């Protein structure tokens, strides 16, 4: 039989290896999921650069274009256009719009792109106050050198 000390060391080594394996597994899982997610947030001009993400839920951010909000006859569907100063995307949303949803203000829509390049939103993000702008959006605006569409 082996000495108990050796056995303890052996077990510690096995546990350490298991721990490392678990960490590697976590990193791999996260990385593979992140690859899909790297472009979870889109601005209208990103579509031109990266192509349409058709098969998954994404966020679309930008400014609600002036004069673009149209309410459909059913009373619950709203159509509007989101722009980032370079490109625009027509958006359809069925639901109760957040209180701060208005023209010329920032909006983040969650949903999917359609084959024709339009966007169907399942949720519009409502935030605490009128000063709020998501950093992703601030970054996009900065990139395109326009704060007002």
């Amino acid at each position, binding site marked *: 039989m082996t000495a108990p000390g050796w056995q303890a060391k052996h077990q510690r080594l096995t*546990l350490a290896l298991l721990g490392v394996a678990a960490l590697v597994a*976590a990193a791999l899982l*996260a990385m593979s999921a*992140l690859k899909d997610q790297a472009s*979870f947030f889109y601005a209208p001009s990103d579509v031109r650069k990266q192509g349409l993400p058709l098969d998954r*839920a994404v966020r679309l951010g930008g400014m609600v274009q002036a004069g673009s909000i149209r309410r459909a006859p059913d009373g619950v569907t709203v159509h509007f256009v989101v722009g980032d100063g370079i490109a625009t995307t027509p958006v359809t949303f069925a639901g109760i719009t957040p*209180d701060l949803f208005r023209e010329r203000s920032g909006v983040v829509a969650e949903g999917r792109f359609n084959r024709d390049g339009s966007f169907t939103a399942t949720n519009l993000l409502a935030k605490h*106050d009128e000063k709020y702008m998501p*950093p*992703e959006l601030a970054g996009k605006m900065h990139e395109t050198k326009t704060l007002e569409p």
Partner: protein
Amino acid sequence: MIAEAGLAALWFAAALAALQLALAALGLARGQPQPIAAVRPVAIVQGALAVAAMAALIALFLASDMSVKLVVENSHAAKPWIYKFAGAWGNHEGSMLLWVTILGLAGGAVAICERRLPERTLIATLGAQAGIALGFYAFLLFASNPFARLNPAPANGLGLNPLLQDPGLAFHPPTLYIGYVGISVAFSFAVGALVTRDVGPAFARAMRPWVLGAWIFLTLGITAGSYWAYYELGWGGWWFWDPVENASLMPWLAATALLHSVTVLATRDGLRAWTVMLAVVAFSMSMIGTFLVRSGILTSVHAFAVDPERGAFILVLLALYIGGALALFAARIGTVRAGTTFSFVSREGGLVINNLLLSVILGIVLIGTLYPLIAASFGVQLSVGPPFFNKAAGPIALALVVAMAIGPLLRWRRDDASALLDRLIWPIAAAGFVGAALVVLAPPGILPLFGIALAAGLAVASVLPLVGRNLLRTPLFTWGMVVAHLGIAVSLAGMACDSAYTAETLVAATVGQPVRVGPYVVKLDGIKPVVGQNWSALEARLSATRDGDTIVLRPQSRYFSDPVTTTSESAIATQWDGQLYTVLGQADGQGRWQLRLWWKPFVTLIWLGGVLIALGGALSLVGRWRRERRTAVREGCA
């Protein structure tokens, strides 16, 4: 005057924390009895002074003292008193003061109550606590003084954010903070034990109640936060993978792992280094949580104002504490010898698997939460959303549920794999039966089906440890484990039912028009204006009929003038088999009102499970406490 007194109390408390740290260091280095004897009383007075400072701030809010900047920015004379009271911590400065107050209180409690630890380890623990507190005192005094005056004083305050004006949210932050701070005490114990090289079962038994207490409060805090988001945001969802939610989930995951590994250390003297490491990790997670929420670098429905300077301050504290603890860990790990060995098919082996899976989930949540911040520092703007977390953490979480069903059925030290299979027959049969029944009666999607079947299996496996025992003589901590694991099964069932069977209807309805959702027919009876203490609202009266029974719901669209905001107050009717959830939207100018209706079968199980999990923790805590008291009495008599 009260403000100055509060500030003075804060300064004195900070000075005492510095003294406490110095005395502990001196006493341990020189081995002199006088400084060691002084550490306990100093810790108690420090805690009392922190409480005095917090009391002063609450008094200022209750009195609506508009000469204090913090009160002006976060309160309003016309607010209900309960929100004035809660407003004291519903902001950055106040919440940090609450943090350090609870920390001081915990330090005082350790100084008064802790009798199990050797004196030197206790002194080192109190020294570590003082070190943590000192950083927060410095943060308050130099970067976010809650008692700053405003001159000239305005007549009225700006008000509390209406979204925060909710009883749930008034008590949510203190609950989470008690959890965070409890973990910091566990961390101090680990540092103390490392300093005196005394990592063993006695240390584990002393640390366990703190971990357990922190874990109970974190569980309750997360459950309450989830329910708050569910009814207040009006989106019908209960978890958004919001960074602030993750900030409370991560310490919970680490504390859950710690809770299980500390049991191995306390009862079997195994996993010494791992347990100490987890205490460091858990505390790091609660610090990272504080940093994420308070630095304003996150976009979140919960995050407070953006202030990079404060973020940098907390980041420096974070680096100091975690770096210091890791350095100490590295220096002392050689002296922390591993205890007994065990076979892999054993309770210990099961707990190792539990710890590994929890760590993997923690790693995934951490990566998903921090990745956008790291990318941003390289000039890349991106966000990580729910699809990432669901895809990466979901499978591991399901594996964890399987491990959770098996683990408690294993024996300590060594078990037999084929005997284990015999014990697993009933859980597997239950999962199979429920799964098959669902497919026949009401086929859900593949994932929810898996979830409900797994929940059934786990529920049966959870109660198996009670089978064949005298229930009255079963120790309370065994009951605790059973109830907590059952709580996970209940929550899981609720989540799966919600995602499989929720019915949603969105309409623009006229008065009297019947609208169908799930088993209900809902009718809009009318809209009328109502007035509250500091808001006015349009309120809809909805009557919902199901099998001849009618319930009335009154969702509101609320308008606040200070500051100008509108919020939707959903109305929810809870039935035994689910909830009817209604939200009132805007009018379309032609006599129609937007209504969003959900029928959510068994959704309440999600939070009922959370409460059960916390209850399991509480049973465990009481059980350990009673056993220890009994042992102490016996030893005292002998």
